[in-house]
Structure formats: C-alpha cells, structure tokens
C-alpha cells in the first residue's frame, strides 16, 4: 500500500488537520527529533487505498547566512557583504529538522504540503521538498501536491484535500529574494553604523544599532511626529461662547459659524456686535436622517489597529493570540488583506454557529429572523477571506486576552452583517445681529450594528427642544474665551499601523514585527495610551540619516 506524506507548518496544526481528515481515527507517535509528532491513518488518495502520515515542521526549516569567514565584524568591511556568498543553514539546528523529514520521507510515495497559505509558507514548501523528495519512492505522474485552505474547519480542510494544486515556485523565490536582500542590507548597515557610533557618545547605548529596510522607516515616522511636536509654536485664538435658555428650561450652547479667530481685536469687535443684539433669532430648523455605516469585513491591519487602540493589546501580541485562535479552529486565517467575502461564502451558516452564545445569541437570532445585510463592499486581495469566527466559543475556553480578541472578531463579523445605525440630526440655526450660530442634537432611530458593537454607539443626546421660526430668545451670556493651539500627540500604535499601510511599509504579516523591533531595540518607548515616543537613540539615528540627505526613509523600503 502506498504512503502519502503530509507536512503542516506547526505540530499543533498537524494534529488538528489529522484529526479532521481521519475523522478522529488517527494514531500518533513522537518523531525522531522529539519536537514533532506523526499522525497515521488509512484513507483514499487518487482513487486507491493509502496510508497517510501527517507531520509538521516548526516554521522555516532553513535560513540563510553569510559563509563563515564573513561573520567577523572586525575583519570584514561591511561593503563586502553586498557581494559575499550566502549559504543556507538550518534555522534551528537543535531540531534536526532536515534529518527528521528525510527519515519520514523514506518509503513514501506522494507528498502533500499543508504549510500556511502565504508567501512564507510557500517558501517552506520548497524547503520541505528539498529534504524529502530525494528520499521518496519514484512514481509516475505528479508526486508533490499543495493544499490551499483558509480555516481549520471540517469543511475547509476536506475541501482542500479534494482540490489539491501544485506549489508556486515564484512565490517561494520571492521570499528567497527578500531574505537575501534583508540579510545583505540589514547586516551591512547594522555593522557599519554600530561600529561608527561605538564609543563616540558616552550616554548612548550603542552596543547594537540595527538597521532594517522596513524597521528604519517605521522608526522614521515616530521621529517625524516627535520633530513636529518639538517645533510646534502654540498660538492664542478666541472663540465666542454664547448660551441661551429655551422657554422650556433647557440651556443650550450655541456654536459660532466662524468657529474661531486668531486676532483678538476682531474677535472683540464681533463680541460687541453680538452683545449689542442681546437676543438670538431662530432662522430655521433642519432635520436630517443620518446613518453610521456598518463596518466592512475585518482584515489584519484593522484588527491590529482596534486591538491596540480599543483593547490595549500590542500588534505583536495580537498576532500571537490570533495565530493560536486560528490553529485551534476558532477563527479563519488571521493574515489577510481582503475585506470582502467571496460570493459563495456561507455567511448565514457562519452566523448561525453563534446563535447559542450567551453573549450575543439573541442579537444573532434577531438578525437571522429579520434577514442579514449584505456586507459593505470592500476589496479582495485574493489571499484569504476576511477574518471570521469559525466556531462558537465560550469565555471560559480562553485566557483573558484571547477571549477579548475572539470577542472583538465575532462582534465585528456580526456587525458587518447588521443594518446601519440610523439617527436623526436636528440643527437649529440662529442669527444674533448678523452673525450666524447653530446648535444640533442627535436622536437615535435604529441602533443597527451598534447593538453588537456598543463602543461605536452614538452618545445619547437629550431631546432637542422645539423652536419656531422667528422666535427670539434672550442671551444668557456672550463672552470671549481665549484658548491656545496645541501640537499633535505622539503617534499611537494604531496610527503608526495606518501610516505603514498607507506607505507600503511591511505587509499585514510583518507590520507587528517591525513595531516590536523598534521597541525591543530601544528606539521607541510605549507610553500611556499606547503611544510611541522615540528615545534619544532613535531620534539621533533618524536625524543622522536625514543629515545624509535620505529625506524619505520610506523610499529605502522600496529598495531605492
């Protein structure tokens, strides 16, 4: 009987996949390297009965590095690193991964690759093939297959098994190219600038001053904001504060159409004109129905932003949690740029899974009864569907952070299928003398999606009292208030994520890594509110680059 060797990206995934594909009947044993297990079961492949062996690697099998003699910082000129030879080395030598794979490959006839479905995973596919194909039996026809899947669910995995394709060499090679570039540029600059700064500045920790083509522009954004704050000059301005009391008793503050003025004399002039009138005249009342639109489907960058600003969880940790949730089958693949579901996605079925939840079950039932909304149009990047909950979970299943992230993902999903939030905005326009003022209030008509995403709910205004045209109301007071302009704050993590996305720095997968790096390397500190404040080292580094006239750090990331 033939044998089909199947390789996943992580031991936990191998276990989940084997359980699904074997319908729970697989037998497991430990592998020769002590870290990976093999799960065996019988089944059908290409019409014949075979033995399946599902195992895994632990991320990348190989990494690349310079040939030994180039590892000396003192003897090697960094410039040489651009042309120095590179070799592939085992990524984690203590795992003995290539040996382990070769051993399991012996006697196998077919190979099915279950690595994660992104470029890195594709690259690992070829690493696995390097270690296994040579030791396998010769067969006629296709020997190596690739499974494509987006969630660890019964349906998705079984479907992937029925629709195997071939691995994509181009994607894999693009990762090789990136690895080589990162190595050469990163090493060369890191060594150069560390040696340059060593010993020059007593109070600067210059043991290792690293450079990376994505990490450095990330730092650049933080320092740019810092510079803007430092160079800001506050200026005084004046607003006119007017208050009236409706005959019914409610006091209202009126907003001036001119908003604010930077010249005191002119502001005083207006104040006098207004005081001279002594009363406000109602010109008109307008009512407009407004909507707050339901969110588009969730992708990685948005998840990172909300986790940082709403849940106070940093992007690196968020991704770790999301990975775990994915491996255990609770959510779909968390690294995706797509914000639009494919036509054939079973939204209702996915939603129905949440019906018995104590947290939002009744909202879900109501939604299913009334009919779900088609999710708002987003963009399809062709990688994976938006991040979606794949099975029901209870709070007791998780630790605190994992629950909060699962909770957010699910609420966002339900929200994206809910109706928009509708409210009525009433605006009353006044004239005092010839100056225009207004005041407005909101009344909720239909909470819509904000019922399941309560942090987005409209703050409830009190009812706006009734005014009639030409009605005049005496002014309670009209006074001039002086304020000052203030600088922007330090970049929040969420803002930095947006900036990186806008400028194409890093991918949805690597953005958390870069942000984490600049923190770990002491280039920025995280202060309250998850804001990033550059350290003196970080500031000096970016200013140094600017002096060398690298005006746009983000161009470096594009390889210029």
């Amino acid at each position, binding site marked *: 009987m033939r044998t089909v060797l199947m390789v996943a990206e992580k031991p936990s995934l191998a276990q989940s996949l084997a359980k699904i594909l074997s319908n729970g009947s697989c037998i497991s044993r430990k592998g020769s390297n002590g870290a990976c297990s093999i799960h065996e079961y019988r089944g059908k492949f290409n019409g014949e009965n075979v033995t399946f062996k599902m195992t895994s690697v632990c991320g990348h099998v190989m990494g690349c590095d310079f040939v030994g003699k180039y590892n000396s910082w003192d003897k090697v000129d960094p410039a040489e690193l651009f042309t120095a030879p590179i070799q592939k080395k085992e990524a984690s030598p203590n795992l003995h991964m290539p040996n382990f794979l070769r051993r399991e490959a012996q006697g196998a006839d077919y190979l099915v690759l279950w690595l994660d479905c992104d470029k890195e995973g594709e690259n690992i596919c070829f690493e696995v093939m390097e270690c296994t194909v040579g030791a396998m039996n010769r067969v006629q026809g296709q020997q190596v297959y690739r499974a494509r899947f987006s969630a660890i669910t019964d349906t998705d995995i079984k479907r992937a098994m029925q629709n195997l394709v071939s691995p994509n060499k181009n994607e894999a090679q693009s990762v090789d190219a990136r690895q080589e570039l990162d190595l050469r540029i990163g090493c060369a600059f890191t060594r150069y600038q560390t040696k340059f700064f060593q010993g020059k500045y007593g109070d600067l920790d210059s043991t290792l001053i690293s450079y990376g083509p994505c990490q450095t522009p990330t730092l650049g954004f933080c320092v740019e*904001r810092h510079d803007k704050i430092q160079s800001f000059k506050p200026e005084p301005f004046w607003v006119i504060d007017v208050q009236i009391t409706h005959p019914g008793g409610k006091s209202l503050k009126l907003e001036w159409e001119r908003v604010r003025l930077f010249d005191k004399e002119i502001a005083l*002039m207006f104040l006098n*004109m207004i005081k001279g009138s002594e009363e406000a005249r109602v010109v008109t009342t307008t009512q407009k129905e407004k909507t707050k639109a339901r969110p588009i489907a969730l992708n990685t960058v948005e998840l990172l*932003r909300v986790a940082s600003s709403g849940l106070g969880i940093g992007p690196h940790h968020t991704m770790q949690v999301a990975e775990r949730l994915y491996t255990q089958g609770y959510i779909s693949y968390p690294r995706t740029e797509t914000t639009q579901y494919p036509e054939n996605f079973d939204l209702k079925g996915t939603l129905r899974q949440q019906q018995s939840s104590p947290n939002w079950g009744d909202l879900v039932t109501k939604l299913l009864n009334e009919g779900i909304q088609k999710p708002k149009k987003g963009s399809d990047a062709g990688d994976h569907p938006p991040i979606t909950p794949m099975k029901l979970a209870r709070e007791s299943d998780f630790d605190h952070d994992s629950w909060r992230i699962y909770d957010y993902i699910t609420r966002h999903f339900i929200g994206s299928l809910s109706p928009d939030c509708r409210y009525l905005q009433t605006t009353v326009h006044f004239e005092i003398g010839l100056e225009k003022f207004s005041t407005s209030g909101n009344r909720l008509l239909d909470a819509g999606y904000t019922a399941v995403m309560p942090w987005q709910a409209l703050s409830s205004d009190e009812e706006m009292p009734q005014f009639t045209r030409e009605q005049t109301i005496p002014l309670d007071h009209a006074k001039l208030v002086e304020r000052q*302009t203030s600088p922007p704050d330090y970049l*929040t993590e969420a803002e930095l994520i947006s900036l990186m996305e806008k400028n194409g720095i890093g991918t949805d997968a690597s953005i958390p890594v870069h942000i984490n790096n600049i923190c770990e390397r002491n280039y920025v500190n995280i202060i309250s509110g998850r804001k990033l404040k550059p350290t003196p080292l970080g500031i000096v580094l970016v200013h140094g680059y600017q002096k060398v006239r690298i005006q746009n750090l983000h161009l470096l990331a594009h390889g210029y």
Partner: protein
Amino acid sequence: MIAGQKDCIKAWMLQTHRIDVQNDWLQACLDWIQEEQRESNTVNTPDSVKNLVFEQWLMSDLRELHSCCLPDNLQENIKATISGSFPLQIESIIDVGSSCYSQLQKVKGTENANVGVSADTSIQPGYWEPKPSKMLYLKLTDGTNDIQAMEYKPISSIGIDTVLGTKVLVHGDVICRRGVLLLTSDNTHVYGGEVDTLIEDNPPEQLLQQAL
C-alpha cells in the same frame, strides 16, 4: 499735449474709476507716455492714453502719490460709517481664521502629509485642530492714512495670495468698527495692480514668521 487732454483724462479717471488723480502726477505720467511713444515710434490714440494712465496708477505706490480720501480719526470711533468711493491699496493680507503656524507650514511646503493620517478613518486630516474657516485681515492705505479691514462676508476676488499693492475700491456705506472696515463683495471692488517694492519686502513666510 493739449491742456484740454489732461483735464479730459482726469475727468475720465474720476468718472469711470472713481479715482481722483493729482495734477503733478498726471503731468509726469503723460510726459512719460509721450517719451515712450517717441522711442518706440508708435502713435497712441486718446483712448489708449487713458488706459495707459490707468495702468500706471495700478502699478504705482499710493504713498508716493500722497493721495488721500479717507476721513481722519476713523481709528478712534467704536462705530462709524463712511460713505463714498475710496480707492485704497493693500499693504498686507493675513488669514486670521487659521493659525500662523499651520499657514507657515503650508507656505514652506513642510506640511506633513502624515499628520493627516488617523487610525479612525472617519476623522478629517489635521484632526487635532478644527477645520479652519478663512477670514482675511487686511491693512490698507489711501496714500496718507492707514486703515485695517476684514472680510466680513466672503469676498471671492481677494485671497491670501492676492499680490501686495493691489488696488481696491471700497464704496457705498461701509461700516467701520474700532478702526476696522467691514468689507463684503458688495462694497469692495478689485482693480488689480501691484507694487514691486511691497512684494519684495514682504514675502509671506516673513510675515507669518513675524506674527509667530
């Protein structure tokens, strides 16, 4: 040049453009036009002479002309109204609806586009400041007296980049509060023109920098 022509042109300037030119200046202007005509070997029709005079007025500095039309002591009254037609020259323009700092950034081109990025995509650019509303604040002169003015109602024909030395006609019944004329598009008409020295001496960057 016939004596009658000078009177004719003076009357025309007053009637068509509401500008009262002084005889000395007009004579010097006509002499210059005649000189140019001789050198370039062209002949000017009476109409083209009138237009040349008007153009010269647009390019001149009213201070040098010592022209005068505004009543004195406007600065002292809390509220006053002036009536008539007043040709004035713009000496400086600033926008008091937005901070000098942000205007300076715009002029220097150092406005940081990344400042416009916010994690909440529903917030507008420059989110930490309210949306600016333009209000121009002008210093004007009639050649002798200085006066301030502001854009009480939006005037589309004057902007923050209107060249200094531009001549405007303020006409009708114009309210003046605390020495500031309240201008609207109804009571303000832009002639055009400029004054070289004013432009050179007062680049926008410098004006904003001084205000800070």
